[in-house]
């Protein structure tokens, strides 16, 4: 066990170089399965002994409720519950374990999760377990730093994760040989992880080449293209992606014979960078930071272009183009609305309605503050702009029964099916 060192100013327990050297196990929540698997390998290749938490089950929420204020948002309850549950499981040497959590620093509650986690750790008797903030400079740790090479691989991982999620969602419901899509996701995830571990696959040229190969492989899956109800999922980022949080929403929709589209993480990354640009434009600020963010956004955009091109080349519905998505929301919500998923959430609904995924599940933790504005608060306007949008908002919470959620989704689907039938009849 390494010596425990605390930040002089805030008294925060730090993750030290010694801890890294001693191979402290770093536990990470698994928000989006495809992406996070790849990202974990990226961290491992930089000498961090990362492990994704794959645990599920009701005891996780129960543990969360025990150690976190019950009115806190569901993602916090789950993530913290999962961490403490893991520490209590006996599976880890708790004196050689650290936890990693993202922190965006925005004006919503999510920036506080990490502090709530520390409070909970103290309550549960794990005050000696260091917590690493995965953020841009919000908290510093001598044993962990986001270096440029790491960031580039990290972003590369996001690109591949997004593409794999996008393509698999478009092939899986139609595949002739059941299981073929997921097998391909599996093998490509491994390939990409290995590439990134070897320090390869993240330059623009390599990304282009790999995306091409990857997309081509998916285009070879034999499909039976019967018309299906197409459903888009948007929402608070954790609830949107995490199966544990959204009660297996994607599986449920698959059971209901739907094709699903989840806008990817790259859009969110662009959004977060763009916020700083918009802040500068709106309120003024540091010109150098502004220029830096513009470059960064350009870089993300060039990666995005590669994704779009490869998808189009093989006749897939391409991922959303950030600039276009942003354009769509003009007049609906201002670019200053940046907390949580901000205007991007609204924009994604508009974009989904435009690209044929007009049946939309808008997911949010019960009482999610930004979603009052950008989710529930914007739907009336969305329907005005895109009358075909068929949206249902679902609250997730430890006490919200699945049966009520599914019943509401089924209502949305019933309307969606009717529209689909109409469309088919019109075509005939």
């Amino acid at each position: 066990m390494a010596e425990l060192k605390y930040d002089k100013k805030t008294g925060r327990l730090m993750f030290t170089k010694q801890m890294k050297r001693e191979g402290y196990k770093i536990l990470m929540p698994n928000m989006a399965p495809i992406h996070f698997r790849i990202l974990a390998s990226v961290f491992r290749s930089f000498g961090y002994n990362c492990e994704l938490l794959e645990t599920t089950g009701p005891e996780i929420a129960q543990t969360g409720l025990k150690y976190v204020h019950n009115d806190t948002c569901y993602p916090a309850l789950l993530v913290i519950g999962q961490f403490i549950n893991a520490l209590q499981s006996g599976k880890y040497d708790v004196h050689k374990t650290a936890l990693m959590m993202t922190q965006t620093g925005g004006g919503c509650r999510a920036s506080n999760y990490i502090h709530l986690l520390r409070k909970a750790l103290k309550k549960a008797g794990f005050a000696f377990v260091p917590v690493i903030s995965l953020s841009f400079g919000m908290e510093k740790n001598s044993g962990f730093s986001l270096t440029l090479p790491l960031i580039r691989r990290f972003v590369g991982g996001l690109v591949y994760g997004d593409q794999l999620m996008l393509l698999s969602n478009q092939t899986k419901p139609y595949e002739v040989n059941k299981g073929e899509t997921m097998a391909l996701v599996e093998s490509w995830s491994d390939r990409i992880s290995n590439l990134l571990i070897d320090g390869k696959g993240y330059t623009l040229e390599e990304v282009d080449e790999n995306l091409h190969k990857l997309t081509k492989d998916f285009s070879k899956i034999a499909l039976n293209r019967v018309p299906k109800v197409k459903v888009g999922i948007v929402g608070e980022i954790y609830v949107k992606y995490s199966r544990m949080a959204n009660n297996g929403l994607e599986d449920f929709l698959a059971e209901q014979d739907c094709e699903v589209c989840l806008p990817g993480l790259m859009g969110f990354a662009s959004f977060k960078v763009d916020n700083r640009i918009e802040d500068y434009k709106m309120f003024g600020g540091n010109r150098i930071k502004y220029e830096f963010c513009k470059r960064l956004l350009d870089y993300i955009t060039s990666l995005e272009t590669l994704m779009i091109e490869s998808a189009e080349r093989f006749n897939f519905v391409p991922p959303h183009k950030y600039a276009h998505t942003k354009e769509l929301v003009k007049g609906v919500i201002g670019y200053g609305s940046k907390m949580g998923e901000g205007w991007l959430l609204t924009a994604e609904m508009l974009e989904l309605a435009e690209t044929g995924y007009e049946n939309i599940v808008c997911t949010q933790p019960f009482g999610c503050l930004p979603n009052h504005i950008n989710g529930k608060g914007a739907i009336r306007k969305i329907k005005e702009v895109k009358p075909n949008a068929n949206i249902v908002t679902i609250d997730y919470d430890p006490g919200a029964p699945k049966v009520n959620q599914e019943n509401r989704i089924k209502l949305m689907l019933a309307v969606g099916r009717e529209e689909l039938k109409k469309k088919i009849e019109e075509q005939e």
Partner: protein
Amino acid sequence: MKVGLDIGSTTIKCVVLDEENKLIYSTYERHLSQITDKIAEILNRVRGKIPGIESAPVALSGSAGMGVAQDCGIDFVQEVYATRVAANTFIPGTDVVIELGGEDAKILFLTNGLEVRMNGTCAGGTGAFIDQMATLLNVPLEEMDGLAAQYEKTYTIASRCGVFAKTDIQPLLNQGARKSDIAESIFKAVVSQTVAGLAQGREIEGQIVYLGGPLTFMSELRRCFDRTLNTKGICPENSLYYVAAGAALCAEQRINYDDVIEKVKNYRGSGNFAFNRPLFESRAEYEAFKARHDKANVSQMELKGYTGSAYIGMDAGSTTVKGVVLNDRGELLHSKYLPSKGNPVEIIKEFLEEIYAVNPDLNVVSSAVTGYGEDIIKNAFDADYGVVETIAHFTAAKYFMPDVEFIIDIGGQDIKCFKIHNGAIDNIFLNEACSSGCGSFLQTFANALGYEIEEFSALGLFAERPVDLGSRCTVFMNSSVKQAQKDGATIEDISAGLSLSVVKNALYKVIRASGPDELGKRIVVQGGTFLNDAVLRAFEMEMGTNVVRPNIAGLMGAYGAALYARRKSGGKGKSKLANAEDLRNFVHEIKVTNCGLCSNNCRLTVNSFGSGRRFIAGNRCERPVTKKAPSSDLNMYAYKLGLINAYKPVEGIRGKLGIPMGLNMYELYPFWYRFFTELKFEVHHSPASDRKLYQRGQQTIPSDTVCFPAKLMHGHVQTLIDNGIENIFYPCLSYNFDERLGDNHYNCPVVAYYPEVIKNNMKDVRKVNFIKEYFGIHRPKDFPKKAYERLSFYFPDLSLNEVRIAAKRAYEEYDAYMTKVRKKGDEIIARAEKEGKKIFVLAGRPYHIDPEINHGIDKLIAGFDVAIVSEDVISPRVNAFTTHVLNQWTYHSRLYAAAKYVTTRKDMELVQLVSFGCGVDAITTDEVREILENESKIYTQIKIDEITNLGAVKIRIRSLLAAIDTD
């Protein structure tokens, strides 16, 4: 022919339609949660009755039938969709359908753009809610309608959900409000909830059809809808069967009856539900548990013929009334535990009559009363003492365990917990609205299934897999039970699960404790709910420690009151409590009136008990009682409100500009007022919030879980528009001023961006120049140029220079305003110090000074002869310090700073006002509590919403005062 079934949360409906879609068979039955048996029975019956039915297609609808349908091979049709199909078939030309069921409320817009809406999870329980209210009023459901028809006045009842509404009705009943008025108010609440929660800005007009049980059976409820919607809706024949008929219309697939009935009968769900450890592994374990608890005993003595000194304690709780008679050794001579049935006065009268009947010569030395009904009972019967609940319970608990460290009381409606340190109450936890009614929920639920509560809870003792039902609130629990049943949980599992849920709610929501170390080892549990062994066991299991439960757990409030009376009287004298003679002449008259002494215009219930004894309820301040206005000299809230209202419009060449007075405007108004006045606008703010103003905008609120202060903004904007103001300015502000107290200076997402919601949901803003641009007041240097860019779009004749000057004045005005506020605060503190008064820091947000938001809590607290300051007065008195949370919102930074400062002063206490739905306060409350408790200060939180139970607030404040008094 076609067959349709509708499995609702409480009833099953089945119809058979012929080829012309005519109803040839229908049935409507309660299923008492025996869903599968009932489906099988009905299918069997239909098959026997209607020849040829076997070749007819069948479909099933209703959320409670979802799982069964899937697994037993019957087509499932979503119920709202089914309603729509039926309405289109049977009443073509229908524009809107309003359907109320047991659990859910739905509105369908069929014409001009199809829309189907169901209530959100946090607004469930419509029909079930009316059922519960009938129970609460102690009238059969059928009589509710007749009662409502006789109403004279109505009260405002929260329309958020059943739990909240119940919290509002309880005190009304205890105050003596008329049942007919309450019945009508309940209907109005249902209407308001449905219209506001579901229509969300869309107008309900054209041909309207009412469907579902409550609307079919209650004509008064339909009339309430008619009145609110200004229309005349129809309730068609067979209005109960639309879902079932819709399912039949959608039916496409035949079933093999033998096969399906067999499958339905054997349907046990997936068995895949979350569960906990069994409460008891064996009977022996249970017996040992019983034996241990039987030791905490008060002896029962004979009342008849007792000649010694007697002490009477009464506890008029929210749902039950308790009374005890003790002898001088503290032994029980007589006790009574009864539901208050909406009239505690009558119950106490009977209790006293009973005592005098058994022992006419009883020597009552002293008496005391506690609980919600303390004031009314004390007045009605001339009880000697009133004692605040916390003290009563503490007194009683000490009798059983003199060195008690923690007391938890779970009653029917409330959960109360106190931490005891050095023989004094050191911390108090009271539940807020969401946790209320847990105890009585067990009872109601048991009765709904046809069990007595004792019988029902005993079922859970040996359940193998107590199901996890969550702990948010009883509405959610109720839905979780539905889910659990679908998944195959047994009644035993559910019984045990409910007991666990009640305990978890108390522990993790109310107390926020994660282990016994936080409570202390010496725990006394009490309250009627703990008489339930399953609940008691669940508590011991969750906390991993043994506790003491007195055999009189349900009577502890009354018992404590009697002990209190004994102590206070010193065993000498004669009680002035009403004697047998007084009771014979007892009268109780109720008059409802409006106060009219100030702009609050409280709805008063005046109880007269003859010989000039009177009790007034419903008042927010003491004015209708004392006829004197409360002094506002030492009340910062009143001062601030006055300051804001002092800004008067000045005529300007650029025309009128209106600012909605809510949220951050309560602090930024001086800034924007000066800014736009300098730019030669005539600046108006919307009038003071009131109920009417709120209702003006209520229909356009898209999210029912957003905080009340935000919801009020709709009314403010609407009022400005209605008043003919051509420019409305309501800016988006991601950031607030940086007061250098925290890591950042954000506004919360709702304060920052609510203008977007107004713009997107209120169609009338299109009639005016609605300016919701983004501004950066936190950067005074950049502000003029950026503001000029934004504003010149709307006002092209503005010049940058003008804006520069106006901005400079605006910043000055803001500084001047804040200086005034702080100076006044310093004055109040100085005066309180001089006069030796306690200082209460009523800590919240700037908008908490709105009387419609704070419900007069400032006046109520001021009534206890204490000084009131706000958090921003003292927050500059400390330097920035490290908190255990990310300190990133300007308003919240003030809270932490204020808490820190309060810990340095013996004469200051902090009371935090929290608006329901404020997500940010889930973080601040824990941190503020921690800051205070680390320095042994008591933390008090008051959660407020659309309506607030001031009775509960009063108890909280009195408890706090009692606790600090004993220091």
